[in-house]
C-alpha cells in the first residue's frame, strides 16, 4: 500500500510545475557555479605553482649557509583545493598565506582579495545551491501536503479507505524526498562531469568518497525542511497560511541566523585586540630580559664575537623571549579561530548553519581549511627547527647557539638542499574527516528525528474535514 501511495505521489510531484522549475533552476545554477569555479581554480593553481617554485628557489639559494636558512622567511601559501566547488566557506576573506622562519610564524595579512567596492556576495557553490535553493524547493514540495488535499477534499476520501494516517504521511515524506533527490543527484553528477570534461578538474577517489558522504548529509539537511513543511501543513488549515509560516521559518533559518555570527561573536565571546596582545608580548619581553639581565649583565651587549663566553646566556634569553612571543601569538590565533567556532555553534539552532559547517568540515574548506593549514604550519616550523638543530650539531666548527638576533654563533656550512624539509599540505583522510564531521551530522539526525515524531503526532491529530 505504501509503495502504491508513494508511486502515486511521485507521479504527481514529477509532473508538477514546481518540480520542473526546480530541476531547471538547479541545473542552471550548477552549470554556472561549475564554470565559475573551474576558471578560478585554474587561475589559483597557476599562481600557486609559480609561488611554490619561487619559494623553492629561495630555499635552494639559502642552502649554502645554514644560518641564513634558519633566518629565512618562507612565504607559504594555502593550496587551492578542488573541494571548493562543493563548499567555498568564505576562504576569500581569510588569509591565504603565512610567513614562516625557524624562529617564528608571522602574523598573517588579513586582506580580502575581492573588490571591496562591490557588495558582499555569497560564493555560488554546491552548498549555496543546496542550502538556499533546494531547501526552498523542499518547502515548496511539502507546504500543501495536507492542506492542499484537504481543500481538494481528497484527504477525507483517502483516509476513508483502510489506509493508516502514518502510511499516508510516510508516503508523502518519502515521495518528496525522492523528488528532491533527483535534482540533487543530477546536479552533482552534471557538475562533476562538466568539471572533468570541460574544466580538466578530475576528482580523486578519496574526494569522491567525501562527496558521497556530503550528498548523504545534504539529503538529511533537505529532509529537515521537508519535515518542517509537513509539520506546518499538518498544523494549519489552509495552504496560504502554511506557506507564509514556512517562508518565514526559511528566511530566518537560512538567511538571517547564519549571517548574524559576527554580531554574536562580538557580543558574547570577546577576545583581546591585536594591540593588547602586542602589549602583552612587550611586557613578557621586558620581564624576561630583566630576569636574564640579573643573571648575566653582559647579555645584551653584542660585540660580534660568536664564541664569547656569555653568548649562551644571550642565546637562552633571546630564545626565552621568542618562545614566549610565539606562545602568545599561537594562543591568540587559536582564540580567534575559537571565537568564530563558538559563534557558529550558537547559530546551530538553524539547520543551515549546521549543514554549511558540516560541508566545510567534509571538504576541509573555509575556516576548517585555514585552521588545518595553520596547524600544519606550526608542525612544519617545529620540523624545520629540528632539522636546523640537528644539522648544526653535526658541524664541529659551530658554537651551537641558535637564536634569532645574530646568525654568527651557529653553523655557516652549506646544507644539502634536498634534505631541507619542504612544506607539503596534507589531505585529511576519510576516517578523520568523518570523525570530525560526526557531531554536526548527529545534530542533523536529531533535527530529523524530532521533526519526524512531531510530524507524525501532528498529522495523527489533523482534522481532515
Amino acid at each position: 500500500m505504501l509503495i502504491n501511495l508513494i508511486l502515486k505521489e511521485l507521479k504527481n510531484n514529477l509532473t508538477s510545475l514546481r518540480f520542473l522549475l526546480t530541476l531547471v533552476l538547479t541545473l542552471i545554477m550548477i552549470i554556472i557555479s561549475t564554470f565559475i569555479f573551474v576558471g578560478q581554480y585554474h587561475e589559483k593553481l597557476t599562481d600557486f605553482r609559480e609561488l611554490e617554485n619561487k619559494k623553492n628557489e629561495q630555499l635552494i639559494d639559502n642552502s649554502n649557509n645554514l644560518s641564513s636558512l634558519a633566518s629565512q622567511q618562507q612565504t607559504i601559501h594555502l593550496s587551492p583545493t578542488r573541494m571548493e566547488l562543493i563548499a567555498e566557506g568564505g576562504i576569500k576573506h581569510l588569509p591565504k598565506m603565512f610567513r614562516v622562519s625557524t624562529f617564528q610564524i608571522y602574523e598573517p595579512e588579513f586582506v580580502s582579495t575581492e573588490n571591496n567596492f562591490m557588495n558582499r556576495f555569497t560564493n555560488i557553490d554546491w552548498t549555496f545551491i543546496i542550502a538556499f535553493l533546494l531547501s526552498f524547493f523542499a518547502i515548496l514540495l511539502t507546504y500543501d501536503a495536507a492542506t492542499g488535499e484537504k481543500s481538494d477534499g481528497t484527504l477525507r476520501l483517502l483516509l476513508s479507505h483502510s489506509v493508516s494516517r502514518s502510511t499516508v504521511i510516510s508516503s508523502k515524506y518519502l515521495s518528496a524526498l525522492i523528488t528532491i533527490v533527483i535534482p540533487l543527484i543530477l546536479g552533482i553528477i552534471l557538475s562533476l562531469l562538466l568539471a572533468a570534461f570541460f574544466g580538466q578538474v578530475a576528482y580523486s577517489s578519496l574526494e569522491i568518497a567525501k562527496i558521497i558522504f556530503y550528498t548523504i548529509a545534504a539529503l538529511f539537511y533537505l529532509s529537515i525542511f521537508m519535515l518542517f513543511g509537513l509539520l506546518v501543513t499538518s498544523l494549519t488549515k489552509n495552504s496560504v497560511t502554511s506557506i507564509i509560516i514556512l517562508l518565514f521559518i526559511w528566511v530566518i533559518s537560512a538567511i538571517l541566523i547564519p549571517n548574524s555570527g559576527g554580531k554574536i561573536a562580538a557580543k558574547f565571546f570577546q577576545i583581546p585586540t591585536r594591540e593588547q596582545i602586542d602589549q602583552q608580548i612587550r611586557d613578557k619581553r621586558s620581564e624576561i630580559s630583566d630576569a636574564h639581565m640579573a643573571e648575566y649583565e653582559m647579555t645584551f651587549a653584542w660585540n660580534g664575537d660568536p664564541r664569547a663566553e656569555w653568548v649562551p646566556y644571550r642565546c637562552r634569553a633571546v630564545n626565552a623571549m621568542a618562545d614566549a612571543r610565539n606562545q602568545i601569538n599561537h594562543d591568540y590565533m587559536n582564540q580567534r579561530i575559537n571565537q568564530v567556532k563558538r559563534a557558529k555553534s550558537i547559530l546551530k539552532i538553524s539547520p543551515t548553519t549546521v549543514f554549511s559547517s558540516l560541508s566545510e568540515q567534509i571538504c576541509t574548506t573555509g575556516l576548517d581549511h585555514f585552521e588545518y593549514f595553520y596547524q600544519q604550519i606550526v608542525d612544519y616550523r617545529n620540523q624545520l627547527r629540528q632539522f636546523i638543530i640537528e644539522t648544526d650539531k653535526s658541524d664541529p666548527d659551530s658554537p651551537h647557539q641558535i637564536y634569532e638576533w645574530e646568525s654568527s654563533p651557529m653553523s655557516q656550512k652549506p646544507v644539502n638542499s634536498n634534505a631541507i624539509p619542504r612544506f607539503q599540505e596534507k589531505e585529511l583522510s576519510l576516517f578523520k574527516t568523518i570523525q570530525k564531521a560526526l557531531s554536526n551530522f548527529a545534530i542533523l539526525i536529531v533535527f530529523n528525528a524530532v521533526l519526524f515524531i512531531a510530524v507524525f503526532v501532528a498529522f495523527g491529530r489533523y482534522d481532515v474535514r
Partner: protein
Amino acid sequence: MIWHITKKEFYQNLITARFIVGTILTIVLVVIITLILIEEYNLKNESYNNNLQQNENHLKDVYVYSEIESRAVKPPEILSIFHGGISRKLGNLVYVRRQEAPYQASDDVMDNPLLKIFQYVDIFLVFKLIFSLMALLFAFDLFSGEKENGTLKLMLSSRVSRAQLFAGKIFGGMLSLTLTLILGILIHLLVMILSPKVFITEEIVVRLFIILIITFFYTASFFIIGALVSTLTHRSATSLTMNLFTWVVLVIGLPNIANYAAERLKPIESIKIINEKAKALQKEFENKLDSYSETNPEPPGGTVISGSTDEYGGYYKFRRANLNQFKFYKHFIPFSENLRQEYADKIYSVRQNFLTTLKSQANFVNQSTIFSPVRMYQILIAIMTRTDLENHIDFLSQARIHRTQMLDYFKSKNAYRVTRFFTIMTEQEAPDVTSASVFQDGSEGDRIWERSSIEWEDRPHLSLEDFPRFIYKNESLSRSLQKALPVFSALVFFNVLFFALGFYCFTRYDVR
C-alpha cells in the same frame, strides 16, 4: 467604486494569517536587529570621539613641523543602523601625512578579522526579504484565488468594470502592506529615539520617510509582479510556485551572479601590480634623495631623538645639530619636500587609476541588473542612508583636501625654510663643531658639544591652534535626492509598466 473594493480588500487582508504573521515577524525582527545595531553604532561613536581626542593630543604634543600628522575621521552615520552599506567595510579613518595622498581608509574598530566570513544583517536585509515575500504572498491569488472561489465571475457580473476591480484590488492589497511597512519604520525610529546615545535629527526623520516611500515602491513592484503572474495563471498553486521562483531568481540568484559576471567581464588589475608600481615610484624618489646626498653629503654629527627620524618618510627630529647641519638642512628640506609632493602626486595618480577601475567594476554590477527592483532598492537605500560608494569616495577626497590645507598651512608658516621644521634648537644655539672633535674626550669640541645640550621638555610645543582640523561634510539631503532621482524614476516606471501589463492581461483574463 474603486475605493469600495480597496476598502473591502484592505479589511479582508487585515484578518488573514499572512498579514498577522508577517506584521508580527517584521516588528520582532526590526526591534531585535535595531537594538543590536544601535550597540554597534555606539561603539563606533566612541571610537570616533577617541580618534578626535587622539588627534588633539598629538597636535598638542608637537615640537617640530616635520612630525605633524592629522587624522581625518568620518563620524558614524546614524542611518547605518538601517543599512550598513558598502562604507561599513571600507573604513572611516585616514592618517593625513605630507608624504602620501590618501587613497584608502582603515577601520579603527579592529576586531577579529576571521569574523569576515560572516555576512552582515541589517534592517535593509530584513525589509528586502520580508516585504518582497509578503508582497508576492499577498498578490499571488489576487485573481486566481477569487476565480477558484467563483467570486470573480460574480463580481464582474455586477456593474464593476475590470479596470476598477484591478485597480481596487491592487490598492487594497498595497494598503495593508503599507500598514506593516509604516509600523516597521515607526518602530525602528522609536527604538532609536528611546536609546539614549542616538540623537535623531529632523533630517534623519525626513530620510526615513523617504526610505518609507522607496520601500513602498519596492514592495509595490513585487506586489504587481505577483498580480501579473496571477492574471496569467488559473490556479493559485501554480501562481504561487511561479511567484516564488521569480523571487528566488530576483533576490537570491541574480545579485550573486551579477558580481561574478562583473569579475569576468570587467577584470581589474591585481592589487599586487599596483603596489609594485607605487613601490617603484617610491624607490625612484628615494634614489633622487640619495643622489642629492651624494653630491652634497650631509655633515656628520648631531643626535636625533631615537626612533624619530625617517629621511625617506620626511620625518626629522634632531635633539642637537651642529652648525654645518643647519646649513645643510636649510637647502635640503625645501628640495626634498618639493620632490616629496611631486612623488606623492605621482603615486596617487597610479592609485587613482586603480580605484577608478574598482569603481567601474562595482558600477557594472549595478548597471547590469538595474532592471531588477532588488537592485534599484539597494541603490536607493544606500544613497538615502549615506552608505553608498560615492559617500566613501567623497570622504577620501575630503581627506585629500584636508591634506592640501595642511600643505598650505606649512607654506603659510614658511615651515620648510625654518629650522623649526627639524629641530627645536635655534641656529644661534647650534655648536660650530665637527664630529671629529666632538668624540675626543676632553677636547674643546667635546666641551662645546656638551654645553649645547638642551632639554626639549623645557621648551614650548609648537602652537597649532590655527592648524586646520578635519571636519567631515555630510552629504546634504538635496544632493542625496538628486542622486536618487534617476533610479527612483526607474523604480516608479517599473511599477507603472508592470501595472499596465497586469491590467492588459487582466482584461483578457478568462474568469470562468
